[in-house]
């Protein structure tokens, strides 16, 4: 199983680059989800929920998702979850404020930590196989 992080969070890139492949998206959180959706159609499946965290999608600019390559076709559950997440994010609308550097750093940290827990689980799963 090959795993992959899709993220627009620079902290993720710094933390995981070299350990887990990171596909860095230079764009918004919805763009990350679209990239995730496309990868799911191309044979990846979700390892983490695309709506991670209780910080609302119109608050945090960052989104990171952990995916795994599948051996056998498309994973419809992943596609449906991602489509649904895109729908939810659209419902919340765009971020309406200008965050300062400090707050952006905090959002990066929370996003990275949400992913880290899952990434550790995924790495543990990999070792066991």
């Amino acid at each position, binding site marked *: 199983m090959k795993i992959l992080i899709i993220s627009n969070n620079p902290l993720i890139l710094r933390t995981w680059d070299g350990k887990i492949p990171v596909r860095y998206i230079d764009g918004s959180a919805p763009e990350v989800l679209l990239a995730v959706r496309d990868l799911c*159609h*191309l044979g990846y499946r979700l390892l983490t929920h695309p709506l991670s965290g209780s910080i609302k999608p119109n608050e945090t600019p960052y989104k990171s998702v952990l995916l795994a390559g599948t051996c056998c*076709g*498309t994973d*419809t559950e992943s*596609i*449906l979850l991602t*489509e649904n997440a895109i729908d939810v994010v659209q419902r919340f609308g765009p971020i309406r404020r200008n965050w300062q550097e400090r707050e952006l750093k905090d959002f990066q940290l929370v996003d990275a930590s949400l992913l880290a827990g899952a990434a550790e689980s995924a790495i543990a799963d990999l070792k066991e196989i």
Partner: protein
Amino acid sequence: MVKEIERTGLPVVHICTVTPISLTVGANRIVPAVAIPYPMGNPSLDAGKQFALREQIVRKALNALTTEVTEQTVFD
């Protein structure tokens, strides 16, 4: 989209690769296609065979259109 068109009273057959999605969006007549980037083709086949494959799927779809259904039906 399938649902809104069917609402006009016209029979609609949905040819799609991900049948669970089709079921979720409420299509009533569903015909599975080949794979995502090329639902009705297969690049590993030559042109003639690809066409035959496509025609087979389309015939299946037309058959679905002439079949009465009372609930969501996947025509495998």
